């Protein structure tokens, strides 16, 4: 029997209460809910940027704590709201992750730029000279350089203008499809949630209130909390 990618069993901490769910390979999951619901806190549990106080989190059937932490984080990539690029060139950023373990292949640079649809001439450009959208593309390329199996996205387009956000969204959609990635995304944008996600996890006050098909959740919410949230 194939193990789920992630399995949460009675996971709790100061913010989250009793999280129980599984995420299967290639699933596209949206974490959504009001501010302070614990979405980002939950997201950071997947790659152990945080640890819960109680409960178990399994990655492919094995507790996340049994993986070498850097190895787990390489496999469970993260794209944050801001690009958070390192000072230097686009190339410096793209090779950062693989270089940490001596796995950088210079030929990958072109491929990564292609993935995020940036011209090759950008490779030696200083990241300070890039627009917000371009920086976010480089950030995505930097995450993909580690060849992750899972992509965690923490509101990756919320800091961008509408048009740029749409472009990034298209790049994301294509890459997730092409690379058969399992996606777990936090977003405030319900339209984006419908466009990119298949399954929704609705969080409120640190609790998982609803779990299901994102389309149906948004059109026919089961709980009062979700109804109110959608109306707001």
């Amino acid at each position, binding site marked *: 029997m194939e193990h789920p990618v992630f399995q949460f069993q009675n996971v709790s901490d100061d913010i989250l209460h009793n999280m129980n769910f599984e995420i299967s390979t290639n699933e596209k999951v949206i974490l959504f809910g009001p501010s302070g619901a614990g979405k980002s806190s939950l997201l950071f549990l997947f790659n152990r940027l945080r640890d819960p106080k109680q409960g178990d989190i399994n990655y492919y059937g094995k507790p996340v704590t049994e993986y070498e932490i850097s190895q787990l984080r390489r496999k469970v990539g993260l794209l944050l709201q801001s690009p*958070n690029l390192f000072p230097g060139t686009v190339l410096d950023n793209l090779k950062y992750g693989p270089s940490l373990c001596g796995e950088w292949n210079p030929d990958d640079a072109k491929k990564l730029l292609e993935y995020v649809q940036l011209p090759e001439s950008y490779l030696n450009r200083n990241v300070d000279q890039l627009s917000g959208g371009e920086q976010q593309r480089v*950030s995505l390329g930097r995450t993909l350089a580690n060849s992750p199996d899972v992509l965690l996205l923490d509101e990756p387009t919320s800091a961008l203008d509408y048009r740029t956000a749409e472009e990034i969204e298209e790049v994301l959609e294509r890459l997730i499809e092409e690379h058969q990635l399992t996606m777990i995304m936090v977003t405030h944008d319900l339209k984006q949630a419908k466009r990119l996600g298949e399954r929704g996890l609705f969080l409120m006050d640190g609790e998982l209130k609803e779990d299901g098909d994102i389309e149906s959740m948004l059109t026919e919410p089961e709980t009062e909390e979700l109804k109110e949230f959608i109306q707001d």
Partner: protein
Amino acid sequence: MEPEISNQSLLFLVIFVLVPLTLSYFYQLGMSKDILWSSIRGTVQLFAIGYILTFLFDLNPFMGIPLMLSIMIIIATFHAWNKGKELPHAFLVILLGLIIVEVSVLTLWLAFDMVAFTPSEVIPMSGMVIGNSMVAMGLALERMKSEFTENSGRLMAALSLGAKPSQASHLIVTKTLNAALIPNVDRLKTIGLVQLPGMMTGLILGGVAPVMAIKYQLVISLSIFSSVSLSAMFVTMAMYRYFFNKNDQLLENEEELRNQQK
């Protein structure tokens, strides 16, 4: 004849205190009390240290020097510690750092015959080394704290890409060290051009020939440069690890830093 300022002349220093006092009064800066207190405190401290030094200079160097250096290092440790009290083990790290810096510098001075092992030479010169190292450590701690706060996103990104805390902090360590070293590089570049350094001025006023005074000044300036670099490096390398927990996770606030100390 040794140059001397008479006590009557010293009394006229009150005029120098009256200037900021008058400014504070007219512009309602509310600093009169502070100005008076710091002037009186400074005067008393200096006279007290004058008498203590006179006493120490008469002691056997093997007693007087370790005694005074220990006192200076402990006071400097408390002072620098104030800049990073919330960081675990900061007191011990600073204390150890200052001891290492002072012992290294003193060893070199004595080994190459730059300074004689007498309280009148070792104590004032060590005071300058310890004082500057104390400031460098305090600044490094403050700078490191603010860099960790400002760059928390980058640090999270680096960790999420598989970096170990030492690799993720590389940027912050570099910035902190740069900030600690740049003022010293600048000071060395303009030394003697903008103002005559304090020690050289003192020696010249004391009747020492300028070239001899310069030799002493070079010894102390380069010793300070080296000890400041070593101090900043030591405290930064020893402390950055405490911004992360044992699972390579970034601690994001003072509460988490303190909890780690327990």
